[in-house]
């Protein structure tokens, strides 16, 4: 399992993480959307999270360490210097 | 082994060790504490484990936890503690975890008379916890039998993956007799069936030819789930009737199809006796004396001594009831197992001899009932 390391901001252009949501497990509690520090996520009309600003993901892992249903995961991206 | 003077409670301890018990968790309560004291001394000598828990609820819980860990486990208590253990007797029955619960009965209810004998918990042993479940309960009539039936209790609990209750009364528990215990090597010991299937195939509650699925100890590669909720063959909670009903059928069947082995009874002159005395525990000793006296007057008297109280010895009672016109049932309670005898043999035939004041039913009381016109 990839060690979850604190994401240290570094001067770069693109996102550092790619957010994947599992609709079947997500109950739409809204925690990830509410507390994502950079607004990557938003609620759709069924109040389920969708990725609206993928480029803003800093791979801080708030969402996938707080999802009560393990229904979201942040895959680290190779960061282009 | 050489004969020596031994107390009933102590014999229970030696029986447990001979049966392979390596874990005891209990709480002090008269008249059973000698069992705990003996095992606190003897278990660590053979690498076994003894713990005194904070109450009887915790004691049986710890035994079940240890049994899940692979050790044969026992607790011993008396009425008040036995009442506290009921929920976990039900849990052990539901989760099919082997364990032995010794209840050295004392006069109840409540604090009652801690140092006086009683057989007042017989129905509690059968119906004490909530819900329907099978149970095995044994009751010795001597210090030697206290040893033998403790071994038997472990063997039944291991073979059938069930809690087994060993009902002593304070008389058997505290009295001392000359006893020659068998050599431990000569004692027949049954161990639970351990599984050997690949881990992903293992079903802790799956069907088995014997109706008793093998039980893997925790930590040996079989990571399964145990719950007090109704569960499916994998042990996961279920509300599906097509999983609950088969479980109920199997769990009762695993006992009922083995009554031949489980129901232990001693019969003396019951073939064509017209009067039969049905007794158990310490009262069976008074009955033996009364029967001897009655036989002196040419009466055809027989005695059935029940070593297994639950499941009830229906077949035996039904058989002897054919010839007997009178069945005397002496008990140190106000009539408990007598209800079962009456259910089988009919109330008209049964003469109850009861006392619940802490004293033994005397031979004279039984003799009077035998000869009553």
């Amino acid at each position, binding site marked *: 399992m990839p060690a979850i390391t604190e994401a240290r901001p570094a001067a770069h252009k693109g996102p550092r993480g790619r957010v994947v949501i599992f609709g079947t497990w997500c109950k739409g*509690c809204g925690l990830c959307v509410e507390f994502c520090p950079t607004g990557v996520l938003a609620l759709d009309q069924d109040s389920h999270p969708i990725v609206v600003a993928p480029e803003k993901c800093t791979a801080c892992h708030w969402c996938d360490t*707080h999802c*009560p249903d393990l229904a979201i995961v942040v895959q680290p991206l190779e960061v282009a210097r | 082994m050489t004969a020596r003077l031994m107390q009933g409670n102590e014999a229970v301890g030696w029986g447990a060790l001979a049966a392979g018990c390596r874990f005891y968790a209990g709480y002090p309560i008269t008249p059973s504490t000698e069992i705990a004291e003996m095992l606190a001394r003897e278990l660590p*000598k053979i690498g076994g484990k003894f713990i005194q828990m904070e109450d009887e609820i915790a004691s049986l819980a710890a035994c079940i936890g240890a049994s899940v*860990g692979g050790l044969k486990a026992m607790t011993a208590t008396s009425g008040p503690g036995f009442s506290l253990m009921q929920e976990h007797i039900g849990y052990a029955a539901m989760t099919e975890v082997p364990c032995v619960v010794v209840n050295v009965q004392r006069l109840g209810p409540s604090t009652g008379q801690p140092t006086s004998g009683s057989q007042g918990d017989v129905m509690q042993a059968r119906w004490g916890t909530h819900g329907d479940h099978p149970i095995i309960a044994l009751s010795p009539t001597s210090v030697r039998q206290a040893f033998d039936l403790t071994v038997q209790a472990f063997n039944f609990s291991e073979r059938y993956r069930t809690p087994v209750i060993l009902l002593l009364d304070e008389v058997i528990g505290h009295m001392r007799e000359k006893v020659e215990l068998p050599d431990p090597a000569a004692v027949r010991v049954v161990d639970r069936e351990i599984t050997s299937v690949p881990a992903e195939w293992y079903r802790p509650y799956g069907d088995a030819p014997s109706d008793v699925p093998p039980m893997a100890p925790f930590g040996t590669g079989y990571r399964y789930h145990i719950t007090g909720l109704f569960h499916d063959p994998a042990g996961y909670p279920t509300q599906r009737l097509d999983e609950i009903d088969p479980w109920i059928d199997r769990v009762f069947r695993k006992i009922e199809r083995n009554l031949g082995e489980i129901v232990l009874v001693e019969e003396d002159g019951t073939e064509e006796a017209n009067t039969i005395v049905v007794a158990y525990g310490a009262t069976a000793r008074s009955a033996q004396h009364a029967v001897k006296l009655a036989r002196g007057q040419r009466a055809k008297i027989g005695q059935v001594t029940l070593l297994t109280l639950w499941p009830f010895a229906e077949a035996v009672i039904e058989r002897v009831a054919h010839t007997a016109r009178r069945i005397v049932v002496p008990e140190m309670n106000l009539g408990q197992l007598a209800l079962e005898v009456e259910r089988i043999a009919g109330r008209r035939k049964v003469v109850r001899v009861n006392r619940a004041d802490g004293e033994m039913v005397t031979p004279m009381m039984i003799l009077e009932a035998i000869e009553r016109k």
Partner: protein
Amino acid sequence: MSKDEHSAYNYLRHTKKFPNVWCSGCGIGIVMSALIRAIDRIGLAKDDVAVISGIGCTGRMPVYLDFNTMHTTHGRALAFATGLKFARPELKVIVIMGDGDALAIGGNHFIHAARRNIGLTAIVVNNSIYGMTGGQHSPTTPLGSRAATAPYGNIEPPFPVCELAAAAGAAYVARSTVYHAVELDRYIEQAIRKNGFSLVEAVSYCHTTFGRMNKLGPAVEMMRRLKENSVTKAAAEKLAPSERPDVIVRGVFRDEDRPEYTALYDEVVRRAQGAAGASVRSAGGAG
């Protein structure tokens, strides 16, 4: 494991139905996730881990986890776990409880397990209510709060969970919240590594019962309150006693080395066997 999968999946029972049974937004799932991260970081073999629970919403956690798991009776998980740990000292035994489970009906076993300092990791998910049975007040429900059985306001002062465990003798005591999930998994990791009785209080919330009855809003609101209404131990020490009386203080309150029960019993076995020097690991495993 495909790259899209959550790293926790390696520890879930794939034969179990997901998503889990808890209400949308419930903190118990966050505690489970933190527990998995702690176990994964330590690198424990699944066979060597046992997770034991009592009755309540927390009781349904172990069945989801690919370890040796037991769902026992209300309040008694620590007693079952004591028996298992004592019989198999080599197992890492983790006990999941709710606040009512651990401190009301389970209070007696809680203080004695701590007093014995037997090697168990107790995680109390403290949402200050009996959630499963519909919102009755528990031993940690705040004074004055509404509950199904305190319709006029709770008049019973709550237990200080960590102080109780420490006073009873626990070797490790820490508190965090489900908002501080990464801090929580650190404390759980330390608790599991600890040789002795360790307690982690995971402050959570129940928006379904407690939140509704006390008009505290949905899960996101109650989560926000955990963020804004908690401070670290260091920060708390700077606060005047009367300042922020009901702030949640997070931190490690005790981390001491105390003789562990099963190790002490190995001494008993040695003394009993009169073996002068030979150390005898007591016979665990099949009886």
